[in-house]
């Protein structure tokens, strides 16, 4: 249950909740690009990532995201972290002016850079996670699909079925909780028949999962058939022009937030692309060179 609640929409009334979904998607993409802009040295990249991290944590606090489920989500990625660390530390990267950390048998050297790199990549992953968490937990799934449909609208010129795809996404999102409930119900029913989902060897586990998956699929197919019948009975036609019950509106606060975030992103992109990032920062903030 806890792992499932990660990223679920939580109904609060914060500034971020009230922003237009289209604006939030735009800003999300901009911020993602910003996070992925590299700097000339690992240390600068790390410092910037930590800066982003602090800002995103503040944003998460403002938008009432659950820090507990966020950190649980990170903890569940421990395997990925381990894999990254091992990979980056033990695969030599001699092209850089690396500082050796330790040498095995005077032939195999591991470098500090490997650790920086692993930490940097993991930090970026966390940043991406917190960004998407802010988006999905402050935006109703339906609004998100409307926003996606709005962005896909120009593709209609080349006969791209943007409405159908948006409808598919919104139906899929709508049925996630329903199917989860169904899965819980079937699990309980099978547990009553002696299935143990948590223990047992591989063969028993596979059998247990089969006893869950097959009934789940059967009922999901039933449900989709019923849904399509019900939609047709109410005259649904994907090709006809439809009106909207809920409309997305671009407010002044959307403009303000975009005007704050987009210049920052642009500035950081400029720093990164110009590759003289350090000089500018030193001159801007009069930072003493201490590295």
């Amino acid at each position: 249950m806890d792992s499932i609640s990660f990223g679920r929409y939580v109904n609060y009334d914060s500034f971020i909740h009230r922003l237009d979904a289209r604006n939030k998607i735009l800003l999300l993409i901009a911020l993602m690009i910003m996070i992925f802009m590299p700097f000339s040295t690992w240390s600068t990249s790390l410092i910037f990532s930590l800066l982003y991290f602090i800002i995103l944590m503040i944003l998460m606090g403002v938008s009432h995201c659950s820090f507990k489920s966020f950190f649980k989500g990170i903890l569940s990625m421990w395997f990925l972290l381990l894999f990254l660390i091992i990979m980056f530390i033990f695969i030599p990267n001699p092209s850089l002016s690396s500082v050796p950390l330790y040498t095995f048998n005077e032939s195999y050297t591991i470098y500090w850079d490997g650790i920086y790199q692993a930490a940097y990549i993991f930090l970026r992953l966390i940043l991406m996670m917190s960004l998407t968490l802010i988006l999905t937990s402050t935006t109703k799934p339906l609004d998100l699909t409307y926003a996606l449909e709005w962005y896909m609208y120009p593709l209609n010129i080349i006969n791209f079925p943007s409405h159908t795809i948006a409808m598919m996404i919104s139906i899929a999102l709508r049925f996630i909780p329903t199917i989860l409930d169904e899965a819980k119900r079937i699990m309980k029913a099978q547990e009553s028949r002696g299935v143990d989902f948590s223990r047992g060897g591989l063969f028993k586990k596979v059998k247990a999962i089969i006893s869950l998956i097959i009934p789940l699929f059967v009922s999901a197919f039933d449900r989709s058939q019923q849904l399509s019948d019900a939609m047709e009975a109410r005259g649904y036609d994907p090709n006809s022009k439809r009106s909207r019950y809920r409309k997305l509106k671009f407010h002044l606060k959307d403009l303000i937030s975009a005007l704050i975030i987009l210049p920052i992103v642009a500035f950081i992109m400029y720093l990164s692309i110009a590759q003289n990032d350090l000089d500018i920062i030193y001159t801007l903030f009069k930072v003493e060179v201490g590295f």
Partner: protein
Amino acid sequence: MPIDVTNLTYIYFKKTPFQADALKGVNFHIDDNDFVAFIGATGSGKSTIIQHLNGLLTPSDGTVKVDEFLLTNNKKKNKNIGKLRKHVGVVFQFPEYQLFEETVEEDVAFGPKNFNISKEEALIKAHKALLDVGLNESYFLRSPFELSGGEKRRVAIAGILALEPDILVLDEPTAGLDNEGRDVIMSLFEKIHLEQHKTIILVSHDMDLVNKYAKKVFVVDDGKIVAYGKPKDIFLSYLGHGDLEIPQIYAFCRLLKEKGIDLDVNKIENIDDLIDQIDERIQIKNG
């Protein structure tokens, strides 16, 4: 196997924004060989109660004691839940959704096999359970997915019966069945109750069924048991006010009373009693 439940409390989604108290200190006792019913509005906590009886849910507070099995809020101490599930069989609402094997007999034998019973023995138990629910040999090798709704439900119920539980818990066993299917299923449970001396715990919205089959009724409201006793006493005590749906025979008596015909409801337990009383009235009237 007697059941003792003391101060049972259950909280859904504890320590989250969705926290909700489902049960608020439930106490009850069920004897051996009893046929009891839990009734109450949707969301009153009936299903939550029965899910504690075979350890699907762990109490947030209080204890559930089934024979020598004791369930408390300490998950580590609740061992033997697996064994408990062999003694307490739960048939969920719409149990036909739990079918998954290729043939009917294999699906029914799936439960016993989970309790380390050999395949041959499990199949013998499965055949017996299928015959008990009124499905003959011609069904054994068919796919459960090609059966009708009522037949599927009987296969699913056989899947629990094949475990040979001492206590059979039924959550809305007749939901979505027609009148005939309803009678077939309920008389099946009554037969099991009378012949095999199993305790039956029924959860139902169908007050006619509860009145007809249950010996004792627990009324659940807002996570608490607010009344219990014989069906007749319970329904008569609710006759005056509309908190609880009442069986048709009592509703009929109430309508008769509004029309000025006051029958002695205390003597009415089933439809035959009702007919007798009306018959008596007609004879008196005819002199």
